[in-house]
């Protein structure tokens, strides 16, 4: 039995960053375990959940829409409702928005082209569960790769989220037409986060940046705390 916090990485049909996420989580101290989308419960002792990038169910209807009602999502919803940390990356972010666990929606990029590049991000809120290893105003470099990553909400929701500190990461430049250059948001309770950039692809300076490791390590911290709290 490992002392490392157990982080469940959900695998949907079409997920393709699940193994990268598991490897990266392992590199920052987690014990990752894969959970197939047909499962109706999470493994005992799960401290955090990651919905990885890639695709899901062909992304029919809208990106992440079908996955939002996958059997495993009931367990994810229940886990989140008791304060369990949940991180959605790229397609995982789209799934969480479609599941209404996060506000807004991800629309096709403004330029109607796939974007694959290192993105500069500004940390807007440092007391977030997921950004505790960062400082406000810190600039992170984390790659993006998506065709539908332009976060959008109605104006009233956007203003409310900004006031509540739920907009946690912004691009320093317009990457995809996202409203307010939003790159990442959290739910009102602060234990569910989604972001379009891929922290799991930025955990080694040899690959250009290790900034993603800051987010994932904070998630592992949160996983350890949640596991202790649940014990």
């Amino acid at each position, binding site marked *: 039995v490992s002392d490392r916090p157990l982080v469940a990485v959900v695998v949907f049909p079409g997920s393709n960053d699940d193994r990268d996420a598991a490897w990266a989580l392992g590199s920052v101290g987690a014990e990752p375990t894969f959970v197939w989308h047909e499962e109706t419960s999470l493994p005992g002792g799960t401290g955090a959940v990651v919905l990885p990038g890639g695709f899901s169910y062909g992304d029919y209807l809208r990106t992440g829409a079908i996955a939002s009602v996958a059997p495993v999502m009931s367990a994810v919803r229940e886990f989140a409702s008791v304060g369990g940390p949940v991180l959605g990356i790229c397609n995982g972010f789209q799934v969480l928005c*479609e599941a209404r666990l996060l506000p807004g929606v991800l629309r096709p990029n403004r330029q109607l082209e796939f974007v694959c590049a290192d993105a500069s991000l500004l940390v807007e809120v440092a007391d977030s569960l997921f950004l505790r290893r960062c400082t406000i105003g810190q600039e992170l470099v984390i790659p993006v790769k998506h065709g539908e990553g332009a976060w959008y909400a109605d104006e009233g929701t956007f203003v409310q989220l900004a006031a509540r500190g739920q907009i946690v990461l912004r691009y320093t430049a317009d990457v995809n037409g996202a409203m307010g250059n939003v790159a990442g948001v959290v739910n009102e309770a602060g234990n569910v986060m989604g972001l379009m950039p891929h922290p799991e692809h930025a955990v080694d300076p040899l690959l250009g940046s290790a900034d993603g490791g800051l987010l994932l390590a904070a998630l592992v911290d949160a996983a350890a705390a949640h596991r202790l709290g649940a014990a």
Partner: protein
Amino acid sequence: VKATVLVRPKEGIRDVDLEVDIADANAARAEIERMCGELLANPLIESFEIRLGGA
């Protein structure tokens, strides 16, 4: 000249045909509206129209 181009799928491209096992038309419509609001359409960015009878 600035222009806005509204690109919309033609009928049938993204439309969903479905069958609900409810005899009463009003009840069927209510159920389909619920399905649209929860999954088939995202009210934040999409609108929907229901045509009973497949017409």
